[in-house]
């Protein structure tokens, strides 16, 4: 065999890779030539077969580091790459590619009671009352069961830290006002999930008595996902409307700073066989969590999600984090958001708009979050069976609609969540490997035994 070296072309002086001009085998000698000048830059040995036109690493590249070609980043190394190795889709990926998620480790599956126990025990160890710890544990578990991971285990560490720093009173007992159809609830800066659970039960009891009831909650904290409380009320054969304000993040189009949170709106009603109509939407086009995720992955945002600190539309995640989120559906969505603030922050008498404190900016200050819950008793209204029959019929007719061949059958709000819940109760909950590791290290640091 001839020992003549294979040439590889390096296109810019700071490149990390060069393309071989002939297929080279493992151990083959490669002469790297700078394309612009033709001068030989170095000689190295191919560590594996590299086909014609493919790239080889000019030096070691650490996992997570950008890979340069033409003098600019063409992606990021997804594994440690050694000098002379083949660089391609097995160890490098685009920063724009949605394939990024495939590089993560496979999920770990845990039963629902594992999630509930780790949350409950960690909160209790951090100083929460048994009732508050149970309430948040249930809400977080339901988030995972229904596929609402953004309100799952990742919320535990911030809550534990806020309890420890005095930002949240884990032992607070929410105070209920007079026993009427209109319940004023003072959360006393307790854990939001606990305050909201107490309020949901109380408003449901009152609606059974009066036919309709509303709970106006102030001095609470972030309560997770609104659909949880709405379905909790709906399970009592009631129709529920739940909304909340929160940390400021949404601006109207063109404004240079946000004024409102992405107040969620949940509406729930019972169906048969452990199913619920569960509408649950935040009023921003996307959550802040999705932008943080995009910033980490290095990708671009879809248009219409966010604007920068100058009030201009942006698709750059970093500029979006420094700026504000946009409401979904343009002016209509923003209008709904303003109206929801009128129904919560303003009506409940607590903090409103940007007065709600930021967990990040002031971890040791009470948030002052407000929630509003309205319950309508179905037995009093139309008769529970009559109403549920009608709702079942609507759901049936939706599913029976003819759709074009490439479309999915129409779904009602909550259908996916409750189907997923049945599957996850049976098969367990898939959790990100890193999330499980983080929660376990948090629990152990609190002296909680977990496995």
């Amino acid at each position, binding site marked *: 065999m001839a020992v003549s070296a294979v040439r590889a072309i390096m296109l810019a002086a700071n490149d990390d890779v060069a393309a071989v*001009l002939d297929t080279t085998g493992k151990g083959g000698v490669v002469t790297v030539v700078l394309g612009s000048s033709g001068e030989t830059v170095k000689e190295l040995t191919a560590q594996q077969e590299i086909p014609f036109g493919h790239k080889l690493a000019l030096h070691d590249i650490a996992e997570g580091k950008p890979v340069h070609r033409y003098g*600019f980043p063409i992606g990021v190394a997804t594994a440690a790459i050694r000098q002379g190795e083949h660089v391609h889709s097995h160890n490098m990926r*685009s920063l*724009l590619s949605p394939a990024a998620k495939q590089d993560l480790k496979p999920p770990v599956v845990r039963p629902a009671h594992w999630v509930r126990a780790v949350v409950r025990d960690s909160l209790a160890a951090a100083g929460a009352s048994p009732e508050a710890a149970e309430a948040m544990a249930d809400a977080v578990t339901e988030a995972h069961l229904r596929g609402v991971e953004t309100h799952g285990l990742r919320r535990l560490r911030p809550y534990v830290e806020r309890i420890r720093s005095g930002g949240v009173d884990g032992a607070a007992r929410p105070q209920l006002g007079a026993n009427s159809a209109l319940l004023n609830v003072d959360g006393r800066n307790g854990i939001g999930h606990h305050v909201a659970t107490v309020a949901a039960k109380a408003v449901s009891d009152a609606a059974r008595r009066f036919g309709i009831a509303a709970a106006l909650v102030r001095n609470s904290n972030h309560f997770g996902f609104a659909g949880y409380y709405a379905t909790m009320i709906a399970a009592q054969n009631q129709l529920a409307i739940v909304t909340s304000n929160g940390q400021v993040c949404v601006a109207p189009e063109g404004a240079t700073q946000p004024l409102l949170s992405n107040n969620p709106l949940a509406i729930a009603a019972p169906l048969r066989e452990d199913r619920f109509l569960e509408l649950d939407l935040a009023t921003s086009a996307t959550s802040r969590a999705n932008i943080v995720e995009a910033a980490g992955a290095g990708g671009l945002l879809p248009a219409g999600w966010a604007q920068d600190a100058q009030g201009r539309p942006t698709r750059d995640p970093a500029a979006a984090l420094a700026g504000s989120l946009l409401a979904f559906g343009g002016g209509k969505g923003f209008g709904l958001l303003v109206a929801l603030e009128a129904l919560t922050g303003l009506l409940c008498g607590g903090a409103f708009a940007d007065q709600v404190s930021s967990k990040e900016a002031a971890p040791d200050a009470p948030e002052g979050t407000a929630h509003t819950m309205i319950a309508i008793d179905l037995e009093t209204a139309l008769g529970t069976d009559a109403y549920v029959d009608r709702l079942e019929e609507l759901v049936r007719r939706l599913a029976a609609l003819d759709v074009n061949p490439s479309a999915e059958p129409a779904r009602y709000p909550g259908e996916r969540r409750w189907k997923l819940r049945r599957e996850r109760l049976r098969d367990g909950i898939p959790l990100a490997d890193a999330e499980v590791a983080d929660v376990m290290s948090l629990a152990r640091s609190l002296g909680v035994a977990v496995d």
Partner: protein
Amino acid sequence: MLDGMWTDGLIGYQRENGRKGIRNLVAVLAAADNVNPLARQLAARNPGVVYLPASYGRGQMGRDFEVSLRAMAGLAAHPNVAGCLVISFEPESSERVADLARRLGRPVETLSFLDAGGMEECLDQGSKLLRRMCDEAARRKRVPLAVGELTVGLECGGSDTTSGLFGNPALGAFTDWLIDNGGTAVFSEPVECLGGEELLRKRAVSPQAAERLIATVHAYNDLAREHGVDLAGTNPTPDNLAGGLTSIEEKSLGALAKTGSRTIMGVIGYGEGAPAPGVWMMDAPAAAVENVTALAAGGAQLVCFVTGTGNPTGHPVSPTVKISANPRTVDRMRAHLDVDLADMLRGTMSLAAGAQVIAATVGEVINGTATAAERLDYLETNISRIGPSV
């Protein structure tokens, strides 16, 4: 690396608006598809006259109509065109195009089916006008042409591994030299810049220009997404992956290599002329015929077109120089190529030598040598649609 090129001098044709052409064409341009038969027969009856058909031209609205009119006027007023007859069914349509061409500083003639009173009359009157234009064109004096008076369109199509490694970098080296000597280069296909944002940001003349460049690129991505196509998800294609491309960034940077390394001045609209020398990005889609038409309509006297697997397209108004570094393509499609860079792959031709071959060929084409596409009459024009008809 190209010092000493073109020292024998370039020659061109002086036009009324101060620009210079490298061809001396007489053209008949249809302002709408309903007079294509007339334009075709006028061209057939008058040998040497270039036929510029319309694909649409009726029922168009808004920005789509504006783009079509601007591109038609750009072709009618092109420096390579000595005289142009714009024809239409009703007089208003050709007048609209003529008016825009006159604003670009070029007189054009118009003729309408309704005014003339039918086909025979149009053929007679049109032929008379075209013959007069041909006579006038033949009397035009040739004048020296400076590098700074050139606008070159940059395009790549049918790209493969050799395009990103040799063809585009060699064209990029030529582009750098063109710009350093006061010339103008226009590239387009913003969709093929997705992932090259950092390069655009770094090379843009100002932060505002960078923002405009990147927004133009992203608009194509949004358009694709609206139609259910995820460009970052579908690129590189299976062919690209097999060829060694791993990411869309890499593919885009390979395409951008043809633009060289000099400052990018900004974005110009479809078929719009560059307002100043330097490198410009034109907002035009990537398909070769539409793309070359856009570059021609913007006044590029010629187009340099790098191809890997081979692409025969040339524009009837802007001579299109075909460049390939793929030995197999050079072997199979030599007749369609003007510049053979296959020795770059073999290692016997440097980047500088490749750029020199491009420059030498471009110089000859400027001075009259027919391109492969001109010789084979593999010429086509088609203006992009960016909206539906009503």
